């Protein structure tokens, strides 16, 4: 698997896009720090960008890489290599190289600004962990979609649709339901629906760590009680982990049954 992983990362490093992505985050990090002049505020702005952008980039990269490396995959399939090794190697290759772009791109400006002397280091670390999780989750979802669709246009379409559903539509539906049923106690419902969407879960997790939960009213207090504890943090990370494992397992299953 390491060989496949190495080739995938090597392949992506040559494709220029990883650099574009890295430089984008680098510029973003510097600009935010320059504009906000405060690490905590920069983290909040960054959060809003990471939460929406990493899933989108992960989705597009995942689908694109699958279709682009089809020839390579077919070549590998005729070699004495296990199928699951090929696909897991490629999946991890894409996810790891995207995560590297993210961590280095954002990490460098913050470290230069004096992150290690600031109290925000834990929040910042959590932000990067969450960003990495989102990369792994959405690349896995994208790979599943690409495996199921021979047609590139369809594959791209469905992948973007999944992103749109989880990043935008989900919140809209949640809001409508919350307003419709505002007379009922909704804290449990809110908590569970947050858990079921990795983007919302990531956002809530960090917002509550940043001590601005007071802005969220009563439900915010309930959330704070849950996410603020180490048990809450543990459960949230566990849920994020499950969000990686299930799609990754599905990739294996789908790939094992597919004809090439």
């Amino acid at each position: 698997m390491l060989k496949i992983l190495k080739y995938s990362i090597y392949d992506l490093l040559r494709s220029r896009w990883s650099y574009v992505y890295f430089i984008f985050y680098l510029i973003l990090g510097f600009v935010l720090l320059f504009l906000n002049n405060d690490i905590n505020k920069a983290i909040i702005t960054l959060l809003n960008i990471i939460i929406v952008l990493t899933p989108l980039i992960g989705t597009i990269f995942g689908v694109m890489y699958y279709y682009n490396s089809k020839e390579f995959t077919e070549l590998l399939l005729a070699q004495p290599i296990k199928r699951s090794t090929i696909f897991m190697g490629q999946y991890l290759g894409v996810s790891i190289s995207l995560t590297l772009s993210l961590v280095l791109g954002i990490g460098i400006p913050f470290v230069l600004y004096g992150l290690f002397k600031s109290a925000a280091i834990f929040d910042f670390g959590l932000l990067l962990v969450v960003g990495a999780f989102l990369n792994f989750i959405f690349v896995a979802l994208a790979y599943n979609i690409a495996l199921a669709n021979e047609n590139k246009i369809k594959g791209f379409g469905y992948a973007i649709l999944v992103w749109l559903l989880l990043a935008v539509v989900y919140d809209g539906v949640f809001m409508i339901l919350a307003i419709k049923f505002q007379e009922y106690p909704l804290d449990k419902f809110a908590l569970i629906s947050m858990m079921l969407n990795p983007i919302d879960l990531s956002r809530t997790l960090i917002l509550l760590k940043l001590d601005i939960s007071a802005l969220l009213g009563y439900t915010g207090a309930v959330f704070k009680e849950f996410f603020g504890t180490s048990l809450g943090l543990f459960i949230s990370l566990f849920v994020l982990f499950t969000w990686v494992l299930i799609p990754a397992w599905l990739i294996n299953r789908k790939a094992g049954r597919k004809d090439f």
Partner: protein
Amino acid sequence: MIEITQLYKKFGKLTVLDGLDLTIDKGGVFAVLGPNGSGKTTLIKCLLGMVIPNKGEVKYHDKSVLKQWKYRNNLNYLPQIANFPANLSVIELIKMVKNLRPKTANENELIEKFDLQPFLKKKLGNLSGGTKQKVNIVLTFMFNSDLIILDEPTTGLDPIALIYLKDLIKKERDNGKTILITTHIMSVVEELANEIVFLLDGKIYFKGSVTTLKAQTKQENLEHAIAQLISKQYQPNHA
């Protein structure tokens, strides 16, 4: 050496392999023939594990190959269309394939024979179809394996390269290798094949030597003999 029993494969509503039985003994060149879409490539890909059959058993050296992968170290495969990663150079690709297989390779001899030296540092995306096919041949023949599977190996080759390819196949045959080859060029079949395996409607319609086929179809010429077999597909209520 290869034993295929009751192999079924459907793609959607299209039945490609319909209860196919085939046994191939060790040694010799076996030409897998059949009209377009008769399932030649599907059959080969089932043997390689790239296509997963709906039903049936495929054995190589008396062991089932379904869901296995180690057996592929003892076979070489030349795919029908040489689709290579476009941004790799020829030498990088050769090194990579060598790195993926725990076997020694004699690529230099083949590179020289097919005159690929000037292309080694060129990107695969910029090569002509024929040159790509030569790279394909080098990748296939550089390892020493018991079984060599060639899916339309002659595509795009110039006459000299074709002669070299035939020599290579003859050499491997004389070394006791088993070679499966699909092609539409009958002169290649006539020159090389010990046996013909003819596929029609997802089954083996004929298996035997070139002479038997000629005798059975009462044709002098192999091309006409094959044409006669194929023409049965165009008649109603055949077989």
